[in-house]
């Protein structure tokens, strides 16, 4: 490969990495909120599926991508409400409820898809890359950074907003306190359960958005299990990112790079590695990430524990 070809390859790789990281960015930043308030939502995978399906179904019916995205967020939050009711109000085990919601998300979306859509075989119009004058035409840089659709660009906004809310508002401060020392929040007269509900709804709304991106901004079809483990990978991203939204943004980009490498190397005829090894790359990297980054110290101290009011 000569230098020119390599640079083109690199530019395409970076562009694809950002695009493929987008669902992870939304889901993992959302999960940062949830976990900072002490709620571990392993039902993220099912939530993303619900978001992907709601987004697809709405765009299918209305032809509007914006309505589809809103439906994705709404579907995710509705699912989050179920999770919050069971884990915060009933105080059931978060892992058990999360596992149940993954089954429900998989089952419900596949059931409805097979009942209504699978025979139509039709796709939807997806969000198109926007052309930014001058910037998009830059050699290499244009391909890498300035040929994305609006949803991809919005990840930067979400990461900045999330950081501001979490570290610069009293809501964010209280939310973090709920995950570290809920009793102090309770004694201070704030509603612990209310903050946890809010955190879970932010988390699942963003996870729904991440799912909706898969059908509205990436593929133009819903496929059963379209998230293929991204909900679980997002959980590992949060650990690697040490529960920070900006960290989640960059770690997601790293995982996007693994996805992009996998796709682009598969397309390279000259590479002899079996494509399954490349397919397994994001999953293997997730495990390695958890081993290399031992972030227990940074975890919210009450992560996974229901709060018993006295």
């Amino acid at each position, binding site marked *: 490969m000569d230098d020119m070809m390599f640079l083109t390859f690199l530019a395409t790789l970076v562009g694809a990495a950002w695009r493929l990281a987008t669902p992870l960015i939304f889901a993992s930043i959302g999960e940062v909120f949830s976990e900072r308030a002490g709620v571990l939502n*392993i039902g993220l995978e099912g939530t993303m599926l619900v978001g992907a399906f709601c987004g697809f179904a709405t765009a299918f019916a209305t032809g509007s991508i914006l309505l589809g995205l809103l439906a994705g967020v709404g579907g995710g939050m509705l699912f989050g409400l*179920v999770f919050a009711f*069971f884990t915060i109000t*009933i*105080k*059931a*085990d978060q*892992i*058990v*409820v999360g*596992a*149940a*919601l*993954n*089954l*429900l*998300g*998989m*089952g*419900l979306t*596949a*059931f*409805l898809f*097979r*009942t209504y859509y699978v025979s139509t075989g039709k796709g939807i119009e997806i969000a198109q890359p926007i052309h930014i004058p001058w910037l998009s035409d830059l050699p290499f840089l244009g391909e890498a950074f300035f040929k994305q659709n609006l949803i991809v660009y919005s990840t930067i906004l979400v990461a900045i907003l999330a950081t501001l809310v979490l570290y610069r508002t009293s809501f964010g401060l209280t939310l973090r306190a709920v995950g570290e020392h809920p009793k102090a929040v309770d004694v201070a007269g704030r509603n612990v359960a209310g903050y946890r509900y809010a955190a879970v709804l932010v988390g699942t709304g963003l996870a729904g958005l991440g799912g909706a991106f898969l059908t509205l901004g990436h593929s133009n079809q819903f496929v*059963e299990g379209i998230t*293929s*483990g991204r909900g*679980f*990978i997002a*959980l*590992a991203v949060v*650990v690697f990112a040490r529960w920070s939204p900006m960290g989640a943004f960059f770690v997601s980009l790293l995982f996007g790079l693994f996805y992009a490498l996998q796709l682009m190397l598969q397309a390279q005829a000259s590479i002899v590695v*079996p494509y*399954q*090894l490349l*397919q*397994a790359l994001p*999953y*293997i990297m*997730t*495990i390695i990430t*958890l*081993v290399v980054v*031992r972030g*227990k110290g940074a975890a919210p101290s009450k992560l996974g524990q229901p709060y018993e009011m006295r």
Partner: protein
Amino acid sequence: MEQVNQGVRENVYPQAAQALYRTLSQAAISAVTPIAAVLVALAFGATLLWLNGFDGTDVVTVMIFGSFQDTRSVAEILLKATPLILIGAGLCVAFRCSIWNIGAEGQLYVGAIAATFVGTSIDGLSVWVHAPLVMLAGALAGAAWAGIAGYLKVRFQASEIVTTIMLNYIAIILTSYLVTGPMKDASAAYPQSARLVREAWTPRIVSDMRLHIGILVAVVLAVALYIFLQRSSRGFALRVVGLNPHAARYAGMDVRRNVMIAICISGALAGLAGAFEVAGVTHRLYQNISPGYGFEGIAVALLANNNPLAAIISGGLFATLRSGSEVLQITSQVPQVLVLVIQGMVILSVVAFAKFRDKFRFVA
């Protein structure tokens, strides 16, 4: 002498009767939650069918009773119950030790791979040697695969929830690689392994039905695990570690060792289930050897309240639902994935009812 005997008898029998009565009434009370949970889940499934233009009563008439047509269909249910009981009972041990092994699906796949390897590469052994060898290979591979997640947990504090799920994907991709590459049957167009030699097949119970002795192995192992958990000191240690690792450490128990044992037991049973799928049912390795038994096993264990003995019943129930959903797909074109929704609802209802029961007990 006569009187003494009489006295002993009077003492013993009422005690035994009381104990039996107590056990039965406890069993009855603890059966209320799962039964109520299943009813709620079925009602939800019926509502879902009805809302989408299907016949809601099908859930009862077809899904539950529709699969009990004749001996053959009951045998098919038991065939499906085999992996569910094995995985469910194994997961009971892990969950009791508070190890969230979500990776039974992957452990099943590597068990199937190992069984296929032993069943296709060796020839000329007696069925008495080869069939058990295949099962052992499956169990060991499953235990080893689960052991990876266990080791990463005790050594690096890597969350086993995430690692076991990632290992699921890796095992499934590995299987796809093997049946399209190194283990592919060269003469076949479709990706599949060579056929296992006949001596490696799990013996059938009746020669003209697919049901094999795996169901007996599953029931025996479930009972054995129940005894192990309740009556052995190792089982006690596992439960203590699950309830309170700090207390366990303080009492001189090796927490890491117990965690490894618990996760490897659950992996071994899932691997064995994979071996049975290959050696007892398909006789070849395919890409989709499991329709999600590993995930369904989680619901089996939770419905059984992490009691391996009860996992026999809940495994049978989920197998019935799965068979029924297949019938329902054929008779009424209801997507078979309905069974996933019902599984999820069963878990949610179990959780909710258990909480309400605790509250009720507290008041009374």
